[in-house]
């Protein structure tokens, strides 16, 4: 065994750089694990900022500072007086921008992508460690640029995260030329970080897999991140082009989106959503991949239909590029075209359903361990299904026209983004935190956090379907200003209290997270008895990850193999020559 392993030691790309020490390790490390942890901490900090903005908005919606009371008194006694409509607009714009570009994408792709890809494919680091670290600092810079908008004349961008022209492209309309420009520049820089990460991941996964790690032995997490990297690579630059046009229109008098001079406001929508829809899958595919792995580990069963899962993700990625028009059904689009976009959108339900049924198939008959990670992964599946169903409603043009720009949409994308992606992130943090920091998170606190989050999440976002169907528009600072919404105001206040509960429940998570860094139980190499390569090395793994490049003998999901003494077989365990259980499969291939 040792002689075999020794022949496959690659010295070409591991240990290409020395490990820095002291503070340098956390500022300018080229180690993918440190970079992943940098992404994790930074995006959790941005999560607090984005969540704080959400709570301010919710308070304004429940107790609007602009409300005129029935008695004729102006103002609401417990309103926050500093929230005026312009600031409210800036809040929802920046809440979405921060959550999309600074929280969900960096958590899924920056933190877990960086941390897990090299470990799971059995290599020492990413293909381009320097570009990896540059990508992190570009991401930090993009956050600073975006949030700087709050401190310039006119305030932060307030035209929604979709920044539809001409509201965004004419300074006289949006009232904050500088804020809107910083918003666009921040996302441009963020896009550079994404592109750097994307080609780094693709190069790493294609070229640096350990011997024996064929594409169809990759854990689904790696497959999902691989497909996501292609979406980033091809969708983000189109947004960059649109952002450049927006910055030029705002500051240099070009006319791309100016209809008076032959420009087209709709061009912005096409370019934005050409990026924007793949972006939706950029934010859910990695969550699907990681949730698949978590479900398999804690059901002690192989992922049901592994190849179907892979091809479903590829199909989702490809279809994601031809459905962007479903965001634009009310833009005056040709009805034949909108029918085409509607059909192509509904087709995405097929691979999504394949994934959902395969998750259920993975659970079916499994020996399910209800760890905190598993609970979050189960919540991911359930919430994703709810968000997915409301997505199918909207794909149908007539329904879409009715619910367009209402809270029904807000409910939908929070079910997929929070209910989907963030629950998957929690599941992943509980699963891989022991690997990252060498200590376990507290399970009791974790379960309380999960229960509170799950309950408050649904109390907060489910009623948004109802107020949306009741006609409540997105992006309004004061629902009480509209007669048809006044009867919905108690629901709005209920949502606000649920949101506050949801927000404060996260403090439990942060407490657990930071407390366990020092006080958690030591994790050991493989606390979950999982099969993939990251669990073969110490927690946390040393610089360079693997002392000897591992050789892979099997797929990532050999759980509960009949006849095997343990209920899991590591990917780098060779078949014993006299093992009866796994032998037939090998010989069946030959004979």
């Amino acid at each position: 065994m040792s002689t075999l392993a020794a022949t496959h030691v690659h010295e070409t790309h591991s240990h290409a750089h020395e490990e820095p020490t002291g503070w340098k390790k956390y500022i300018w490390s080229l180690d993918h694990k440190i970079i992943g942890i940098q992404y994790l901490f930074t995006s959790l900090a941005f999560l607090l900022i984005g969540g704080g903005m959400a709570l301010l908005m919710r308070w304004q919606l429940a107790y609007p500072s602009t409300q005129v009371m029935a008695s004729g008194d102006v103002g609401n006694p417990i309103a926050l007086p500093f929230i005026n409509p312009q600031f409210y607009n800036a809040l929802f714009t920046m809440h979405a921008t921060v959550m999309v570009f600074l929280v969900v994408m960096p958590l899924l792709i920056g933190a877990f992508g960086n941390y897990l890809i090299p470990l799971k494919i059995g290599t020492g680091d990413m293909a381009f460690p320097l570009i990896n670290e540059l990508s992190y600092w570009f991401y930090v810079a993009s956050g600073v640029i975006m949030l700087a908008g709050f401190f310039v004349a006119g305030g932060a961008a307030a035209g929604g995260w979709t920044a539809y022209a001409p509201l965004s492209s004419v300074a006289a309309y949006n009232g904050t030329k500088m804020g809107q420009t910083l918003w666009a520049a921040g996302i441009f820089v963020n896009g550079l970080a994404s592109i750097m990460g994307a080609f780094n991941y693709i190069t790493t996964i294609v070229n640096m897999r350990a011997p024996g790690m064929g594409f169809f032995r990759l854990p689904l997490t790696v497959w999902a991140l691989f497909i996501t990297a292609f979406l980033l690579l091809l969708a983000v630059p189109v947004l960059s082009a649109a952002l450049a046009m927006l910055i030029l229109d705002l500051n240099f008098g070009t006319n791309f989106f100016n209809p008076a001079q032959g420009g087209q406001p709709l061009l912005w929508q096409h370019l934005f959503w050409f990026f924007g829809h793949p972006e939706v899958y950029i934010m859910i595919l990695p969550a699907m991949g990681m949730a698949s792995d978590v479900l398999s580990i804690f059901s002690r069963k192989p992922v049901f239909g592994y190849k179907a899962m892979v091809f479903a993700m590829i199909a989702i990625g490809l279809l994601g590029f031809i459905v962007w028009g479903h965001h634009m059904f009310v833009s005056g689009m040709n009805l034949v075209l909108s029918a085409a976009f509607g059909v192509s959108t509904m087709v995405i339900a097929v691979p999504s359903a394949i994934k959902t049924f395969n998750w259920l198939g993975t659970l079916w008959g499994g020996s399910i361990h209800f760890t905190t990670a598993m609970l979050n992964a189960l919540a991911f599946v359930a919430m994703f299904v709810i968000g997915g169903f409301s997505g199918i409603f909207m794909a149908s043009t007539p329904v879409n026209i009715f619910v367009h720009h209402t809270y029904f949409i807000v409910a939908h994308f929070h079910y997929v983004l929070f209910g989907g992606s963030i629950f998957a992130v929690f599941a992943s943090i509980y699963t891989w935190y022991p690997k990252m920091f060498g200590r376990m998170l507290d399970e009791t606190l974790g379960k309380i956090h999960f229960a509170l989050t799950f309950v408050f999440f649904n109390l907060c976002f489910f009623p948004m379907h109802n107020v949306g169907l009741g006609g409540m528009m997105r992006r309004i600072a004061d629902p009480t200003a509209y007669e048809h919404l006044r009867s919905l105001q108690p629901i709005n206040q209920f949502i606000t209290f649920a949101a506050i509960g949801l927000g404060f429940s996260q403090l439990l998570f942060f407490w657990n997270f930071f407390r366990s860094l020092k006080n958690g139980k030591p994790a050991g190499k493989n606390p979950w008895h999982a099969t993939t390569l990251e669990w073969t090395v110490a927690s946390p793994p040393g610089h360079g990850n693997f002392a000897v490049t591992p050789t892979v003998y099997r797929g990532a999901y050999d759980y509960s193999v009949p006849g095997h003494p343990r209920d899991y077989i590591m990917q780098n365990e060779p078949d014993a020559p006299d093992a009866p259980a796994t032998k037939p499969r090998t010989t069946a291939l030959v004979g």
Partner: protein
Amino acid sequence: MNSTTLPASHSFPTPSAGPRFTLPKFGMLVFLASEAMLFAGLIGGYIVLRIAQGPGSWPPPGAPEIGVKLPPTFLNWVMIANTVILLSSSVTYHWGEARMRKGGSGLIGYGLTAIFGTIFLGVQAWEWLHLKHEGMWFNTYGIYGSCFFTMTGFHGLHVFLGLLCILMAVGRSGLRQMKLFSGQTPNPSHTFEELTGYYWHFVDLVWIFLYSILYVL
């Protein structure tokens, strides 16, 4: 234990045959796919905007004529020559790389590429100033000016970044030449030159598309 117990689907990288692409080259090619999408976004936007102008209103009345005419105008000849110069710079770069792989320095090839690249950028700057003098700028003649200056500007920025890399390659080949003169072995790593080459050829390829839609069609 030997590798025959491994399943048939299993394959080890064969150590004798080197990989077709080294990691940096592979990464550069993937990155260029992203760059291609950037220009695809710009060109797609241009096509949409221009088709919507309707027949007969392109270029807008009174705007300076940049499209190729028969017989060609002075400006046409200048831009045709500039295009030929940029495309030749790909050839000279390739020649420099070929010399370098055969053990030479490639200094003349890289030097010519740097000169051609500089001429291209200089002529672009002259064209911009000329058109500005004629009253055409980012904010005039509707989207005619916007599209022209944004697209040639993005491309010019890419040429500029490529040119910086080419100057670096010239410096490296100069060092190589000095080592050759003094009988030493030059730096055997060609990765920088190869990556710069991919990028430069890509930028040239983009120019063929931009020239076609901005000047010819």
